């Protein structure tokens, strides 16, 4: 027991957090010292000192955790070999608390962190949902409400990015037959830098919160409380994680595929993840610029957005949405990939239109870059931009439609199990919820209707449906589907089904309820509403639905935690998948494939006689 405590206290996580707060204090003290030299007093929570300390604190975390150690050694000319397996004399579980370079360990670190962050974000939602159940203010102040909904937004986005990282890191190298990612150290960096970023955002709540929502529009952001600086820096730091992770993913896919795996023989999830990575790699930079300029305007007195000095607040919105619209495709593309990946396995039929589905992911990613200003129809941007952005927004429906028709055609005459297992249920849930989210979108993309619905609760209902349908349901499907691969044990099917049948109806009530109060006049981002609108009952229903969704997620977590030790060992290939990762032992060995495989057929030819996807490479005696 004492030994375990010591392993936890000396883990990279704890050392990193200590390093973060030490560096923060040093940074704050440095600014205070500079001011003292010039004879100026430093008030408590002095903004430039907090911001400078926050930037140093991220370096402090990385140094403390040891993420940079190998690179620092390389600078002085020492090449360090990659460590494999658990550190000497420490138990296997300690790998998950320390800097580890194995892609599977990092994938699981991502997944666990993602679920923890999801719980925090969900808790915030439930706190302000309870407030909204009745008109008038019950137990939150307006400032607390503003901080909670703003933090809910950004923390859920952080959780989704971590979840995408989990799927990409664990699955992509396995599916393409690589032994690891192309840059294992960079991979560890991408994961670990997300932790101080989350700490900064949570600290932003602690020092007074902020009231701009997750978008942080100038010029409101220039007048918001201190918390906004930490929120923006945390958001900015998270961009490092996105950019490094996406470059790693793309390079791994480009250079480390198994023999014979041409682009059109890659698993469809890899296509989705690659399309998402292209967006992450590029668009993240522009929001980084927008956030940097906002912080510089507040802290350093530079002028970009404040019209008083000649600035342009619309510029912030353009730079912000150039990232923040495409990023929703980062959330949904891997999720839609999971749906396309799982359906053929359960339908025992080839995926309908494989090439079109693969290219539709790329299509969504590319069109996604051309639609950002549809968030700004009411913002006062140049009128000439409105119509082109309306048309480009409608264009997104085409590649998305390709995916929907492929799913329907794959299910058509498929041999679906009579008693669908949990992953398949979540796939069906995802399709139904994403459909609601999808068909409510064009109404917002059309200028005349958007002018009425902009900033109403309709839009809240719309994007919760797309996020749940495109990410949450497929992510849960993926967690259930690959759980036996990751742990070697089977989760409890009955609890999995309970989770699904609680969550799906509750989500429909929540999303459709949000849309209906939006149509009836409920505005988003306000803590109170007029009882005369007659929407109080719907608000009570939405709050109850949110609580049910919260409980159902807790059931899933209990199911996974309890099953790691007690559940029966899973079959090697419980879903009868053709994918290579199911042909090797569970949990996957340290280096994935003892014998490399080569691809000799199409990936989704389920139910076709004599079709094979992969076979082991017969070792040829080499000449050296």
């Amino acid at each position: 027991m004492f030994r375990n405590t010591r392993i936890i206290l000396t883990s990279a996580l704890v050392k990193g957090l200590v390093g973060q707060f030490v560096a923060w204090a040093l940074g704050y003290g440095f600014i205070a010292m500079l001011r003292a030299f010039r004879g100026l007093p430093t008030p408590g929570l002095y903004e430039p000192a907090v911001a400078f300390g926050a930037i140093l604190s991220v370096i402090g975390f990385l140094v403390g955790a040891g993420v940079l150690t190998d690179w620092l050694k390389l600078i002085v000319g020492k090449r360090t070999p990659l460590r494999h397996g658990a550190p000497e004399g420490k138990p296997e579980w300690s790998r998950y608390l320390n800097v580890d370079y194995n892609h599977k360990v990092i994938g699981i670190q991502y997944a666990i962190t993602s679920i923890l962050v999801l719980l925090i974000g969900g808790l915030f939602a439930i706190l302000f949902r309870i407030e909204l159940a009745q008109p008038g203010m019950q137990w939150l102040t307006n400032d607390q409400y503003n901080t909670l909904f703003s933090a809910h937004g950004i923390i859920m986005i952080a959780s989704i990015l971590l979840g995408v990282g989990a799927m990409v890191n664990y699955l992509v190298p396995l599916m393409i037959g690589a032994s690891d990612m192309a840059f294992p150290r960079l991979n560890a960096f991408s994961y670990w830098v997300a932790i101080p970023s989350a700490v900064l955002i949570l600290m932003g709540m602690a020092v007074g919160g902020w009231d701009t929502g997750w978008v942080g529009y100038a010029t409101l952001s220039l007048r918001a409380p201190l918390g906004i600086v930490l929120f923006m820096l945390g958001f900015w730091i998270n961009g490092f994680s996105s950019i490094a992770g996406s470059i790693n993913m793309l390079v791994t896919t480009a250079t480390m595929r198994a023999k014979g795996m041409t682009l059109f023989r890659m698993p469809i999830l890899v296509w989705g993840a690659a399309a998402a990575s292209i967006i992450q790699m590029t668009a993240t930079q522009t929001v980084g610029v927008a956030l940097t300029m906002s912080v510089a305007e507040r802290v350093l007195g530079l002028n970009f957005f404040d019209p008083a000095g000649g600035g342009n607040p619309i510029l912030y919105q353009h730079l912000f949405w150039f990232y923040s619209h495409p990023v929703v495709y980062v959330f949904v593309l891997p999720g839609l990939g999971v749906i396309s990946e799982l359906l053929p396995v359960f339908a025992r039929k080839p995926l309908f239109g494989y090439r079109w589905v693969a290219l539709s992911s790329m299509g969504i990613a590319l069109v996604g870059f051309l639609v950002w200003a549809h968030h700004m129809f009411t913002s006062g941007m140049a009128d000439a931009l409105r119509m082109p952005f309306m048309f480009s927004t409608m264009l997104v429906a085409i590649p998305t439609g390709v995916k929907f028709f492929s799913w329907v055609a794959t299910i058509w005459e498929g041999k679906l199990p009579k008693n669908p297992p949990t992953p398949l249920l979540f796939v069906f849930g995802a399709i139904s919820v994403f459909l609601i989210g999808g068909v409510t979108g064009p109404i917002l993309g059309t200028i005349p209707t958007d002018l009425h619905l902009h900033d109403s609760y309709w839009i809240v209902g719309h994007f919760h449906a797309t996020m749940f349908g495109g990410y949450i349901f497929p992510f849960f499907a993926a967690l259930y589907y690959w759980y036996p691969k990751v742990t070697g044990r089977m989760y409890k099917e009955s609890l999995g089904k309970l989770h699904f049948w609680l969550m799906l109806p509750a989500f429909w009530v929540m999303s459709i309820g949000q849309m209906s109060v939006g149509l009836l006049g409920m505005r988003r981002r306000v803590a109170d509403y007029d009882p005369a609108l007659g929407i109080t009952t719907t608000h009570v229903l939405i709050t109850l639905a949110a609580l049910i969704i919260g409980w159902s997620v807790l059931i899933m977590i209990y199911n996974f935690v309890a099953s790691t030790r007690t559940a029966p060992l899973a079959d090697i290939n419980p879903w009868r998948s053709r994918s290579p990762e199911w042909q090797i032992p569970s949990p996957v060995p340290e280096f994935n494939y003892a014998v490399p495989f080569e691809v000799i057929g199409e990936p989704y030819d389920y139910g076709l006689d004599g079709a094979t996807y992969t076979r082991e490479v017969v070792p040829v005696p080499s000449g050296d």
Partner: protein
Amino acid sequence: MSAVTTHSPHDDAHGHEVPYETQMRSNRLGLWMFMFSELFLFGALFTTRFVLWGNTRPALSQEIGLLATGILLLSSFFMYRCEVGAANGDQKTFLRSALLAALMGTIFFIMVVVMEWNVFGLSGELFGIELFGHLKPSDGVYGGVFYAMTGMHALHVLSGIALILIIWWNGRRGFFTPERHWGVEATAIYWHYVDVVWVFFYPALYLMGHAVK
């Protein structure tokens, strides 16, 4: 929870090492993807300049701008010599050119920070040319955009100088061979990239539009 089977991983490691050629392909592709990613960072700043300044620009010292640009471009030549030296095993050319490139980068950095930004608040003239800039960060959007663009670029120059000094220091101790000198190659690509960015920033800041302030 044990999600990774643990059968003597240390013995397996040897057979699973990524071949050097594959790793090099990954490295090159990864670096170029990072460059492509940075294109959006500089592109966003570039766009900001046109949105906020339009057809105007602040009155800056043309002489200092031209001289700094010339020095930065010349440094790229020495960076190229440095890489060629490392590839040919010509230790002397490699080390000397690296130092020269770093020195010229430093001169460029000083010209931006000390002369254009005038962080020390100096004043002086040489041959009738004013040596120190007047634009302050707080001078509305002109100050904001100028400091943001030169600042972001100077940060990249500074990190490039650090990289050159690292390869120089390790190169002196024989870290690189003609066959394996990825560090030199990567630094050279990065340095050229930072130069090319300035090729676009310089006209946007110093030449385009009419001077108003």
